[in-house]
């Protein structure tokens, strides 16, 4: 290695060997190389080693074809819809059956929606002011157990039902007048059976003889 201190450095040798020495450095190196036997032998040795590697690459690697890299799409499992389509693609008879079933379901659905729309129209018509007001009247006189009441209890409830009816009849004109102010008083009242109305509880069937403040005001108002 001492010879490189006096002459050229290994870096200069390598730069010249690989053609990366330019300009004045190149001319200086070549001038020195033509006169220095030591550097000539050193350079010849490095060049021989380098050519061994070069030859190895040329013989064993250059004939190899450059591989063509292609990024293939990663196969993802088919979605349920694709599987669905594939299955019916192979079983057309099931596709026909499913189509027929789907058509029936659609027709039925449309029919149900149609009739549901009719019921809704009826309910909407209840608020029509031109229609007579509906008065719900509990029908307790028949003696039939209502809401799970036994016969004796029903019998005991008869007077209270009558009192209830009276109270409701007294209140009804005012309620109707409050909800439908434009309604004609002459409109005939339609009595709907109390039994036909769903009941959430049975408290209304129990006789309530307590004095209500609202009744008192009603009585005062009526007397006036």
């Amino acid at each position: 290695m001492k010879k490189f201190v006096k002459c050229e450095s290994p870096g200069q040798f390598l730069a010249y060997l690989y053609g990366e020495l330019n300009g004045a450095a190149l001319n200086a190196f070549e001038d020195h190389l033509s006169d220095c036997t030591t550097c000539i032998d050193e350079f010849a040795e490095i060049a021989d080693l380098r050519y061994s590697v070069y030859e190895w690459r040329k013989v064993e690697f250059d004939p190899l074809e450059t591989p063509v890299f292609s990024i293939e799409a990663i196969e993802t499992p088919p979605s349920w819809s694709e599987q669905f389509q594939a299955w019916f693609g192979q079983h057309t008879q099931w596709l026909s059956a499913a189509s027929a079933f789907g058509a029936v379901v659609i027709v039925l659905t449309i029919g149900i929606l149609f009739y549901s729309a009719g019921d809704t129209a009826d309910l909407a018509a209840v608020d029509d002011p031109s229609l007579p007001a509906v008065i719900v009247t509990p029908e307790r006189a028949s003696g039939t157990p209502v809401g799970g009441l036994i016969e004796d209890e029903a019998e005991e409830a008869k007077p209270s039902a009558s009192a209830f009816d009276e109270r409701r009849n007294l209140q009804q004109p005012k309620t109707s007048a409050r909800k439908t102010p434009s309604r004609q008083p002459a409109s005939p009242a339609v009595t709907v059976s109390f039994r036909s109305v769903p009941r959430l509880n049975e408290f209304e069937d129990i006789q309530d003889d307590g004095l209500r403040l609202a009744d008192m005001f009603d009585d005062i108002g009526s007397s006036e």
Partner: protein
Amino acid sequence: MVRSGGSSSKQMFPDLSDEKLVEMAVSGTPDAFGEIVKRWDRKIFALCFGMLGREDEARDAAQEAFIAAYRALPNFRGEAKVSSWLHRIAVNQCLTTRRRNRTRSEDHLDEETNEEERTFVASDHYSPSHTAERGERMSVVRQAVTSLPVDLRQVVVMKEFEEMTFQEISETLEIPLSTVKSRLYTALKQLKSKLEGVSVEVV
């Protein structure tokens, strides 16, 4: 005319030194200089390739170097080794070629070469024996390169296989430029010791 059978041919004077062969060639012994060419044609070609960077130019320069050496045989005084003498002739030939390339177009380079003298350089580069020798040498080089430490082998591969410049290697590995050259130089030196430990003999 001196004809070389190539480096892979069986040596006619296996026990004689290069200096003795030169003396025999000077005294007119047939095939003595051919034996020298057999021994040194590859190294001279490698030297020319290292200086010129192109195989065709290196081949021509090696041919001309051996021609010049044959003509200079009477002037060889034996003060230096034959290898150094041949190296100097080859280097001067390559420098001449480089200077010529700078001033002349490459189309005119081959016109001055005597076709008869082309036969100096091994003419059986693709003979079976040469192919076998080269295959054996490739195996040795492969083992030597693959046995290099990773940091050295990395630089060798990037330089020789990827053909990257020292600056590119420096930026890629994020190491100083001098370190890149030092690693490559160390790698080549280690290759030399590994290759010298394995003799390549093809009969």
